[in-house]
Protein backbone atom coordinates (compact mmCIF):
# COMPACT_ATOMS: atom_id res chain seq x y z
CA UNK A 1 0.00 0.00 0.00
CA UNK A 2 1.14 3.48 -0.81
CA UNK A 3 2.19 5.67 2.17
CA UNK A 4 -0.08 8.41 0.84
CA UNK A 5 -3.10 6.10 1.18
CA UNK A 6 -2.21 5.47 4.81
CA UNK A 7 -2.26 9.22 5.41
CA UNK A 8 -5.86 9.18 4.18
CA UNK A 9 -6.67 6.97 7.18
CA UNK A 10 -5.13 9.64 9.43
CA UNK A 11 -7.26 12.30 7.72
CA UNK A 12 -10.41 10.22 8.26
CA UNK A 13 -9.50 10.16 11.94
CA UNK A 14 -9.04 13.94 11.97
CA UNK A 15 -12.43 14.41 10.32
CA UNK A 16 -14.11 12.18 12.87
CA UNK A 17 -12.35 13.97 15.72
CA UNK A 18 -13.55 17.34 14.44
CA UNK A 19 -17.15 16.44 13.70
CA UNK A 20 -18.17 13.83 16.29
CA UNK A 21 -20.37 15.06 19.12
CA UNK A 22 -20.03 11.93 21.24
CA UNK A 23 -17.02 11.50 23.51
CA UNK A 24 -16.73 7.78 22.78
CA UNK A 25 -16.67 8.47 19.04
CA UNK A 26 -13.87 10.96 19.65
CA UNK A 27 -11.89 8.26 21.41
CA UNK A 28 -12.51 5.97 18.43
CA UNK A 29 -11.21 8.70 16.12
CA UNK A 30 -7.99 8.96 18.10
CA UNK A 31 -7.63 5.19 17.69
CA UNK A 32 -8.16 5.52 13.92
CA UNK A 33 -5.44 8.21 13.71
CA UNK A 34 -3.13 5.91 15.63
CA UNK A 35 -3.78 2.99 13.25
CA UNK A 36 -3.05 5.27 10.30
CA UNK A 37 0.29 6.23 11.83
CA UNK A 38 1.10 2.56 12.44
CA UNK A 39 0.31 1.67 8.82
CA UNK A 40 2.42 4.60 7.60
CA UNK A 41 5.49 3.55 9.59
CA UNK A 42 5.17 -0.09 8.57
CA UNK A 43 5.04 1.06 4.95
CA UNK A 44 8.15 3.20 5.32
CA UNK A 45 10.20 0.20 6.46
CA UNK A 46 8.96 -2.02 3.64
CA UNK A 47 11.80 -2.30 1.12
CA UNK A 48 11.79 -4.70 -1.84
CA UNK A 49 13.03 -7.41 -1.75
CA UNK A 50 12.42 -8.28 1.85
CA UNK A 51 10.92 -10.92 4.08
CA UNK A 52 9.82 -10.68 7.72
CA UNK A 53 12.68 -9.71 10.07
CA UNK A 54 12.97 -13.19 11.57
CA UNK A 55 15.89 -14.94 9.96
CA UNK A 56 16.56 -18.58 9.27
CA UNK A 57 19.16 -20.16 6.99
CA UNK A 58 17.35 -19.38 3.72
CA UNK A 59 16.66 -15.70 4.37
CA UNK A 60 18.01 -13.47 1.59
CA UNK A 61 17.07 -10.01 2.81
CA UNK A 62 14.72 -8.56 5.40
CA UNK A 63 12.56 -5.48 5.71
CA UNK A 64 13.69 -2.79 8.14
CA UNK A 65 12.88 -4.03 11.69
CA UNK A 66 13.32 -0.62 13.35
CA UNK A 67 9.89 0.87 12.43
CA UNK A 68 8.21 -2.34 13.55
CA UNK A 69 9.93 -2.15 16.93
CA UNK A 70 8.89 1.49 17.27
CA UNK A 71 5.31 0.62 16.44
CA UNK A 72 5.10 -1.82 19.35
CA UNK A 73 5.70 1.21 21.57
CA UNK A 74 2.96 3.07 19.73
CA UNK A 75 0.47 0.23 20.17
CA UNK A 76 1.15 -0.08 23.91
CA UNK A 77 0.93 3.67 24.49
CA UNK A 78 -2.20 3.88 22.34
CA UNK A 79 -3.92 1.20 24.37
CA UNK A 80 -3.06 2.98 27.63
CA UNK A 81 -4.26 6.33 26.26
CA UNK A 82 -7.53 4.71 25.16
CA UNK A 83 -8.00 3.15 28.58
CA UNK A 84 -7.42 6.48 30.34
CA UNK A 85 -9.76 8.31 27.97
CA UNK A 86 -12.55 5.77 28.40
CA UNK A 87 -12.19 5.88 32.19
CA UNK A 88 -12.45 9.69 32.08
CA UNK A 89 -15.51 9.25 29.85
CA UNK A 90 -17.12 7.04 32.49
CA UNK A 91 -16.45 9.72 35.11
CA UNK A 92 -17.99 12.37 32.86
CA UNK A 93 -21.07 10.20 32.43
CA UNK A 94 -21.39 9.80 36.19
CA UNK A 95 -21.07 13.56 36.63
CA UNK A 96 -23.39 14.83 33.86
CA UNK A 97 -25.48 11.83 32.82
CA UNK A 98 -24.55 12.22 29.15
CA UNK A 99 -21.54 11.82 26.87
CA UNK A 100 -22.47 14.48 24.29
CA UNK A 101 -20.00 17.36 24.03
CA UNK A 102 -22.64 20.03 23.31
CA UNK A 103 -24.88 18.94 26.17
CA UNK A 104 -21.98 19.06 28.62
CA UNK A 105 -20.87 22.50 27.39
CA UNK A 106 -24.43 23.81 27.68
CA UNK A 107 -24.67 22.66 31.29
CA UNK A 108 -21.35 24.35 32.03
CA UNK A 109 -22.90 27.61 30.72
CA UNK A 110 -25.90 27.22 32.99
CA UNK A 111 -23.72 26.67 36.03
CA UNK A 112 -21.49 29.71 35.48
Amino acid at each position, binding site marked *: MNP*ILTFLVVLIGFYGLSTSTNIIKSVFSVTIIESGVILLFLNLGNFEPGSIP*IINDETVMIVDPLPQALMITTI*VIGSTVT*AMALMLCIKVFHQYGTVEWKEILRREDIKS
Partner: protein
Amino acid sequence: MNTSASSSSRTVVSVSRRILLVAMLLVLFGVFTVSMLELEELYNDYGRQYFFENAFDETGSRNFVTSILLDYRLFDSLFEAGILLIAVSGVIWISKHDVEEKNARFMIDKYKTPDLFVTFSRLVYPLMLTFGFYIVINGHLSPGGGFQGGAIVATAILILYYINPDKETNIGFIVTVEKVVYLLIIVAASVSIVTRGTFFTNFFPVDAPADLKAIYLVLLNVLIGFKVSLGLWTIFTAFLKEGR
Protein backbone atom coordinates in the same frame (compact mmCIF):
# COMPACT_ATOMS: atom_id res chain seq x y z
CA MET B 1 -41.63 27.80 13.38
CA ASN B 2 -38.96 29.72 15.17
CA THR B 3 -37.07 26.57 16.16
CA SER B 4 -37.10 25.21 12.58
CA ALA B 5 -35.65 28.47 11.25
CA SER B 6 -32.90 28.48 13.86
CA SER B 7 -32.09 24.83 13.17
CA SER B 8 -31.92 25.45 9.41
CA SER B 9 -29.53 28.38 9.92
CA ARG B 10 -27.51 26.17 12.24
CA THR B 11 -27.27 23.45 9.56
CA VAL B 12 -26.11 26.08 7.01
CA VAL B 13 -23.37 27.11 9.42
CA SER B 14 -22.44 23.50 10.07
CA VAL B 15 -22.33 22.69 6.31
CA SER B 16 -20.02 25.64 5.65
CA ARG B 17 -17.89 24.52 8.57
CA ARG B 18 -17.73 21.00 7.13
CA ILE B 19 -16.58 22.39 3.78
CA LEU B 20 -13.90 24.46 5.53
CA LEU B 21 -12.79 21.39 7.49
CA VAL B 22 -12.52 19.26 4.35
CA ALA B 23 -10.54 22.03 2.65
CA MET B 24 -8.13 22.18 5.60
CA LEU B 25 -7.71 18.42 5.54
CA LEU B 26 -6.99 18.53 1.80
CA VAL B 27 -4.30 21.18 2.41
CA LEU B 28 -2.80 18.88 5.04
CA PHE B 29 -2.91 16.01 2.56
CA GLY B 30 -1.10 18.11 -0.05
CA VAL B 31 1.62 19.08 2.43
CA PHE B 32 2.11 15.44 3.34
CA THR B 33 2.28 14.35 -0.31
CA VAL B 34 4.94 16.98 -1.08
CA SER B 35 6.95 15.96 1.98
CA MET B 36 6.82 12.30 0.95
CA LEU B 37 8.51 13.12 -2.37
CA GLU B 38 11.87 13.69 -0.69
CA LEU B 39 11.65 10.61 1.47
CA GLU B 40 14.46 8.84 -0.36
CA GLU B 41 16.98 11.40 0.91
CA LEU B 42 15.75 11.20 4.49
CA TYR B 43 15.30 7.49 5.00
CA ASN B 44 17.19 4.71 3.28
CA ASP B 45 17.78 1.00 3.74
CA TYR B 46 21.27 1.02 5.26
CA GLY B 47 19.70 0.17 8.61
CA ARG B 48 18.24 -3.12 7.49
CA GLN B 49 21.55 -4.16 5.95
CA TYR B 50 23.29 -3.48 9.27
CA PHE B 51 20.68 -5.47 11.19
CA PHE B 52 20.78 -8.31 8.68
CA GLU B 53 24.57 -8.67 8.91
CA ASN B 54 25.22 -8.00 12.60
CA ALA B 55 22.11 -8.31 14.73
CA PHE B 56 22.13 -12.08 15.19
CA ASP B 57 25.82 -12.13 16.14
CA GLU B 58 25.48 -9.22 18.55
CA THR B 59 22.25 -10.12 20.32
CA GLY B 60 21.62 -13.83 19.71
CA SER B 61 18.00 -13.25 18.70
CA ARG B 62 16.59 -14.49 15.42
CA ASN B 63 13.66 -12.10 15.72
CA PHE B 64 15.19 -8.70 15.04
CA VAL B 65 12.27 -6.78 16.50
CA THR B 66 12.98 -8.52 19.80
CA SER B 67 16.70 -7.79 19.43
CA ILE B 68 15.92 -4.08 19.02
CA LEU B 69 13.41 -4.03 21.88
CA LEU B 70 15.50 -5.98 24.36
CA ASP B 71 19.05 -5.07 23.39
CA TYR B 72 19.65 -2.05 21.17
CA ARG B 73 16.79 0.06 22.51
CA LEU B 74 16.17 -1.47 25.92
CA PHE B 75 16.12 2.00 27.46
CA ASP B 76 13.00 2.81 25.40
CA SER B 77 11.35 -0.47 26.32
CA LEU B 78 11.85 0.21 30.02
CA PHE B 79 9.94 3.47 29.78
CA GLU B 80 7.35 1.80 27.58
CA ALA B 81 6.67 -0.64 30.42
CA GLY B 82 6.78 2.30 32.84
CA ILE B 83 4.11 4.16 30.86
CA LEU B 84 1.83 1.14 31.27
CA LEU B 85 2.43 1.25 35.03
CA ILE B 86 1.64 4.97 35.10
CA ALA B 87 -1.55 4.40 33.10
CA VAL B 88 -2.64 1.67 35.51
CA SER B 89 -2.07 4.05 38.42
CA GLY B 90 -4.03 6.77 36.65
CA VAL B 91 -6.96 4.51 35.81
CA ILE B 92 -7.21 3.29 39.39
CA TRP B 93 -6.89 6.83 40.69
CA ILE B 94 -9.66 8.15 38.44
CA SER B 95 -11.85 5.14 39.19
CA LYS B 96 -14.40 5.64 41.92
CA HIS B 97 -13.43 2.68 44.06
CA ASP B 98 -10.01 3.04 45.59
CA VAL B 99 -7.31 0.44 45.81
CA GLU B 100 -7.81 -0.24 49.48
CA GLU B 101 -11.22 -1.77 48.86
CA LYS B 102 -10.59 -5.46 49.22
CA ASN B 103 -12.37 -8.25 47.34
CA ALA B 104 -14.63 -6.13 45.21
CA ARG B 105 -17.59 -7.74 43.49
CA PHE B 106 -17.83 -7.28 39.75
CA MET B 107 -20.68 -6.07 37.67
CA ILE B 108 -21.04 -8.84 35.10
CA ASP B 109 -24.62 -10.04 35.03
CA LYS B 110 -24.65 -13.80 35.22
CA TYR B 111 -28.04 -14.14 33.54
CA LYS B 112 -27.26 -11.90 30.57
CA THR B 113 -24.18 -13.85 29.51
CA PRO B 114 -25.11 -16.51 26.92
CA ASP B 115 -24.58 -20.09 28.02
CA LEU B 116 -22.88 -20.94 24.70
CA PHE B 117 -20.29 -18.22 25.32
CA VAL B 118 -19.57 -19.47 28.82
CA THR B 119 -19.28 -23.10 27.70
CA PHE B 120 -16.87 -22.34 24.89
CA SER B 121 -14.90 -19.98 27.12
CA ARG B 122 -14.24 -22.90 29.44
CA LEU B 123 -12.83 -24.85 26.48
CA VAL B 124 -10.82 -21.99 24.97
CA TYR B 125 -9.45 -20.51 28.20
CA PRO B 126 -6.58 -22.99 28.80
CA LEU B 127 -5.66 -22.90 25.11
CA MET B 128 -5.44 -19.11 25.18
CA LEU B 129 -3.31 -19.19 28.31
CA THR B 130 -0.94 -21.75 26.77
CA PHE B 131 -0.75 -19.79 23.52
CA GLY B 132 0.11 -16.62 25.44
CA PHE B 133 2.88 -18.37 27.37
CA TYR B 134 4.21 -19.85 24.11
CA ILE B 135 4.37 -16.42 22.49
CA VAL B 136 6.12 -14.92 25.51
CA ILE B 137 8.75 -17.65 25.80
CA ASN B 138 9.44 -17.97 22.05
CA GLY B 139 9.71 -14.24 21.55
CA HIS B 140 13.31 -14.40 20.32
CA LEU B 141 12.67 -17.18 17.75
CA SER B 142 9.23 -16.53 16.30
CA PRO B 143 6.81 -13.62 16.00
CA GLY B 144 5.83 -12.33 19.41
CA GLY B 145 7.43 -11.15 22.59
CA GLY B 146 6.59 -9.92 26.03
CA PHE B 147 4.10 -7.22 25.13
CA GLN B 148 2.05 -9.27 22.68
CA GLY B 149 2.01 -12.45 24.77
CA GLY B 150 1.16 -10.48 27.88
CA ALA B 151 -1.86 -9.00 26.12
CA ILE B 152 -3.04 -12.51 25.15
CA VAL B 153 -2.65 -13.78 28.72
CA ALA B 154 -4.58 -10.76 30.03
CA THR B 155 -7.39 -11.48 27.56
CA ALA B 156 -7.58 -15.06 28.80
CA ILE B 157 -7.87 -13.76 32.37
CA LEU B 158 -10.67 -11.43 31.24
CA ILE B 159 -12.57 -14.43 29.87
CA LEU B 160 -12.21 -16.02 33.31
CA TYR B 161 -14.46 -13.28 34.71
CA TYR B 162 -17.23 -14.36 32.33
CA ILE B 163 -16.87 -17.99 33.38
CA ASN B 164 -17.08 -17.18 37.07
CA PRO B 165 -18.66 -13.76 37.72
CA ASP B 166 -18.47 -14.21 41.48
CA LYS B 167 -14.70 -14.30 41.38
CA GLU B 168 -13.09 -11.98 43.90
CA THR B 169 -9.87 -10.16 43.17
CA ASN B 170 -7.61 -8.10 45.37
CA ILE B 171 -6.43 -5.28 43.10
CA GLY B 172 -3.97 -3.80 45.56
CA PHE B 173 -2.04 -7.06 45.66
CA ILE B 174 -1.89 -7.23 41.84
CA VAL B 175 -0.58 -3.67 41.59
CA THR B 176 2.05 -4.38 44.23
CA VAL B 177 3.25 -7.47 42.35
CA GLU B 178 3.36 -5.42 39.15
CA LYS B 179 5.57 -2.78 40.75
CA VAL B 180 7.92 -5.46 42.09
CA VAL B 181 8.15 -7.06 38.63
CA TYR B 182 8.93 -3.65 37.11
CA LEU B 183 11.77 -3.22 39.58
CA LEU B 184 13.00 -6.72 38.65
CA ILE B 185 13.03 -5.70 34.97
CA ILE B 186 15.17 -2.66 35.78
CA VAL B 187 17.53 -4.80 37.87
CA ALA B 188 17.85 -7.43 35.12
CA ALA B 189 18.54 -4.71 32.59
CA SER B 190 21.17 -3.05 34.79
CA VAL B 191 23.23 -6.17 35.53
CA SER B 192 25.18 -5.53 32.34
CA ILE B 193 27.08 -2.64 33.93
CA VAL B 194 28.91 -5.22 36.08
CA THR B 195 29.59 -7.76 33.33
CA ARG B 196 29.89 -5.64 30.18
CA GLY B 197 30.53 -2.12 31.42
CA THR B 198 27.53 -0.52 29.71
CA PHE B 199 23.97 0.01 30.86
CA PHE B 200 20.88 -1.67 29.46
CA THR B 201 22.14 -4.47 27.24
CA ASN B 202 22.65 -8.21 27.37
CA PHE B 203 24.59 -9.22 30.47
CA PHE B 204 26.44 -12.03 28.71
CA PRO B 205 29.65 -11.01 26.89
CA VAL B 206 29.48 -10.09 23.21
CA ASP B 207 31.28 -13.21 21.98
CA ALA B 208 29.13 -15.67 23.95
CA PRO B 209 27.20 -18.28 21.91
CA ALA B 210 23.66 -17.46 20.86
CA ASP B 211 22.11 -20.13 23.10
CA LEU B 212 23.64 -18.51 26.17
CA LYS B 213 22.42 -15.05 25.18
CA ALA B 214 18.93 -16.49 24.70
CA ILE B 215 18.71 -17.00 28.49
CA TYR B 216 18.74 -13.24 28.97
CA LEU B 217 16.17 -12.71 26.21
CA VAL B 218 13.78 -15.33 27.62
CA LEU B 219 14.19 -13.92 31.15
CA LEU B 220 13.39 -10.39 30.10
CA ASN B 221 10.54 -11.48 27.82
CA VAL B 222 8.95 -13.45 30.66
CA LEU B 223 9.29 -10.52 33.08
CA ILE B 224 7.85 -8.03 30.58
CA GLY B 225 5.01 -10.40 29.65
CA PHE B 226 4.17 -10.92 33.33
CA LYS B 227 4.15 -7.19 33.95
CA VAL B 228 2.05 -6.35 30.90
CA SER B 229 -0.53 -9.03 31.67
CA LEU B 230 -0.85 -7.84 35.28
CA GLY B 231 -1.19 -4.22 34.12
CA LEU B 232 -3.91 -4.98 31.58
CA TRP B 233 -5.66 -7.21 34.13
CA THR B 234 -5.78 -4.27 36.55
CA ILE B 235 -7.22 -1.98 33.87
CA PHE B 236 -9.88 -4.59 33.06
CA THR B 237 -10.91 -4.97 36.69
CA ALA B 238 -11.09 -1.20 37.12
CA PHE B 239 -13.46 -1.01 34.14
CA LEU B 240 -15.52 -3.96 35.37
CA LYS B 241 -16.02 -2.37 38.74
CA GLU B 242 -16.85 0.99 37.23
CA GLY B 243 -19.30 -0.16 34.58
CA ARG B 244 -22.83 -0.40 35.88
